[in-house]
């Protein structure tokens, strides 16, 4: 696989063999060596072989190997002649991040951090197969799948502004509950309002630095502000949707009439019954994820008010934004000077729409869409803003996080004999977790330094830095 340096932030995977377009990897010099050692570059090239791909198979600087598509991958396919692939979205459909600001500053919470993290641990179900206190009947579950965040609003677990400040207003309208299997429905019954396991988290943080005061003001962020960030997805339901369609499309792949280089790239033409059925099933899982994150945020609001003994007005916990980073979207982009309808797959990548874009809610339209980039639990997270350049180069996409550098097994080995909890507490970060190996697997060194990742997308102009956050208390799954 030949990698050619384009400039300080871009590398080209030269088009060879079955590739229909080249690949472009956004990365700095310091990252590219570790990227080369992984299978991820090959995966960028594999994606470039899929029918209907437009311009290039893209990868963000938080790229690492995934199943089929790399994580950090962005690929757009022509809506009429291209494919849609469950592997291009990922197992955890609409895995995403939301960030809320508060009216509080560090002094309001500093002495209460341990109580807060303990109370979050008690009140927010997390860990393997965790189930929540919301038990749905099938008929009600289907409403969640249709309505997304609005279901939570109808049940008193959201403010109107939460919906306004969520990507797609927390609902993909094409969701069709009849497109998903009984297995998927069954898995969704008991998991609404649960965090999940692995890298999912809920974090109380602090705005450490503002880079762009004007945009930060519009986003409602200020230096020294207490924030709440959470990372979760569509739980078992999303996994089941992905796995069901992966199995089905792998079986029917011959119908497309071309060989896929990896079964995890199983796909269907968008304009086929399988393609459309997946798109509508994926939307169900996406809506479930939005409702889930909304409910988790509502629970966090209640915990903060209870522990700090304050009311909603004093807490002032408002959603800055909610982004999804595992999704396929029908979007219009300008390609070679012509407007075209595309199916943009973002797998471990975030939409980063520019100022003036009609899909950005009115409140932020003048400055651009907020982009949330969580780092590891020991270092930092970032708030960025979408740019015109992202629209031109990456179908309005940018990075989604730090990206792993160590496999879970390698991280566990490295953490052996250490108390990650104590190391974090020494830095003033309180952490609680559920899974017995979670803390070792998720230790800070398991991830790239998110600051390096963000510097690449900022430098390449596919998002711009607005604020840097630091963690104070973290609940892990």
């Amino acid at each position, binding site marked *: 696989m030949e990698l050619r340096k384009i400039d300080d932030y871009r590398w080209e995977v030269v088009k060879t063999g079955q590739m229909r377009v080249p690949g472009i990897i956004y990365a700095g010099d310091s990252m590219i060596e570790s990227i080369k050692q992984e299978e991820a570059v090959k995966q960028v090239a594999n994606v470039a072989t899929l029918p209907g791909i437009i311009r290039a198979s893209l990868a963000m600087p938080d790229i690492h190997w995934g199943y089929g598509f790399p994580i950090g991958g962005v690929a757009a396919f022509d809506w009429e002649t291209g494919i849609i692939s469950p592997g291009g979205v990922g197992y955890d459909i609409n895995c995403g991040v939301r960030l809320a600001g508060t009216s509080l500053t560090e002094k309001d919470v500093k002495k209460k951090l341990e109580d807060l993290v303990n109370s979050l641990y008690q009140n927010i179900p997390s860990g393997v197969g965790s189930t929540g206190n919301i038990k749905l009947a099938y008929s009600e579950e289907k409403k969640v799948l249709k309505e997304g965040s609005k279901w939570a609003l109808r049940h008193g677990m959201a403010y109107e502004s939460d919906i306004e400040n969520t990507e797609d207003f927390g609902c993909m309208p094409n969701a069709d509950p009849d497109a998903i299997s009984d297995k998927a429905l069954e898995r969704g019954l008991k998991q609404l309002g649960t965090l999940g396991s692995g890298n999912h988290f809920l974090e109380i943080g602090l705005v450490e630095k503002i880079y762009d005061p004007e945009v930060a003001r519009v986003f409602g962020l200020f230096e020294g502000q207490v924030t709440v960030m959470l990372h979760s997805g569509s739980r078992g339901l999303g996994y089941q949707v992905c796995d069901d369609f*992966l199995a089905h499309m792998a079986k029917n792949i011959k119908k497309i009439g071309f060989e896929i280089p990896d079964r995890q790239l199983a796909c269907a033409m968008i304009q086929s019954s399988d393609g459309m059925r997946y798109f509508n099933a994926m939307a169900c899982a996406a809506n479930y994820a939005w409702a889930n994150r909304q409910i988790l945020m509502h629970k966090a609001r209640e915990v903060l008010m209870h522990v700090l003994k304050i009311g909603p007005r004093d807490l002032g916990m408002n959603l800055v934004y909610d982004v999804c980073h595992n999704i396929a979207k029908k979007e219009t982009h300008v390609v070679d000077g012509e407007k075209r309808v595309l199916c943009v797959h973002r797998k471990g990548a975030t939409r980063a729409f520019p100022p003036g874009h009609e899909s950005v809610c009115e409140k932020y339209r003048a400055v651009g869409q907020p982009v949330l980039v969580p780092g590891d639990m020991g270092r930092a997270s970032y708030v960025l803003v979408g740019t015109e350049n992202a629209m031109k180069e990456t179908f309005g996409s940018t990075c989604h996080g730090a990206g792993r550098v160590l496999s879970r097994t390698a991280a566990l080995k490295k953490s052996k004999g250490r108390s990650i909890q104590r190391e974090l507490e020494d830095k003033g970060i309180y952490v609680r977790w559920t899974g017995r190996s979670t803390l070792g697997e998720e230790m800070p060194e398991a991830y790239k330094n998110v600051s390096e990742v963000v510097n690449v997308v900022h430098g390449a102009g596919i998002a711009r830095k607005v604020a840097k956050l630091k963690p104070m208390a973290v609940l892990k799954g």
Partner: protein
Amino acid sequence: MKYKMIDHTADLGIEVFGSTLIDLFENAAWALSDLLTDDTGNPHPLPDTSITVSGQDWPDLMVNWLRELLYLFTGKDMIVKSAKIVSLSEYTLTANVKYEPFLSYRHIIKNDIKAATYHQIIVEQAGPEWKTRIIFDV
């Protein structure tokens, strides 16, 4: 040795061995159960449930077989105690599976396995025995 962990950049990869294909599929089921949970309770009699799975080829059948068994845990909260293949052909299998409900005081979750993937899947004859490589998403 029925299976071993493999050093792979993937999250959780195993190689499973069997003297015959039937043996291989049974051992793969055993490996999945072993990776998922520890059982601290005493064995007790359980009824058989018949499960039939098919695929496009051996690797596809292996993934579909493990998918079905994993669903018993992720979807039904059931712990697979044994899986006996009663028939195997190209490319369908029928098995009698014994399982019991997951009880948090009895079963300890060892690995949060979320999916059996096609990533680098192999089912092959290696010398006198059969071997499969499976990567799980965790």
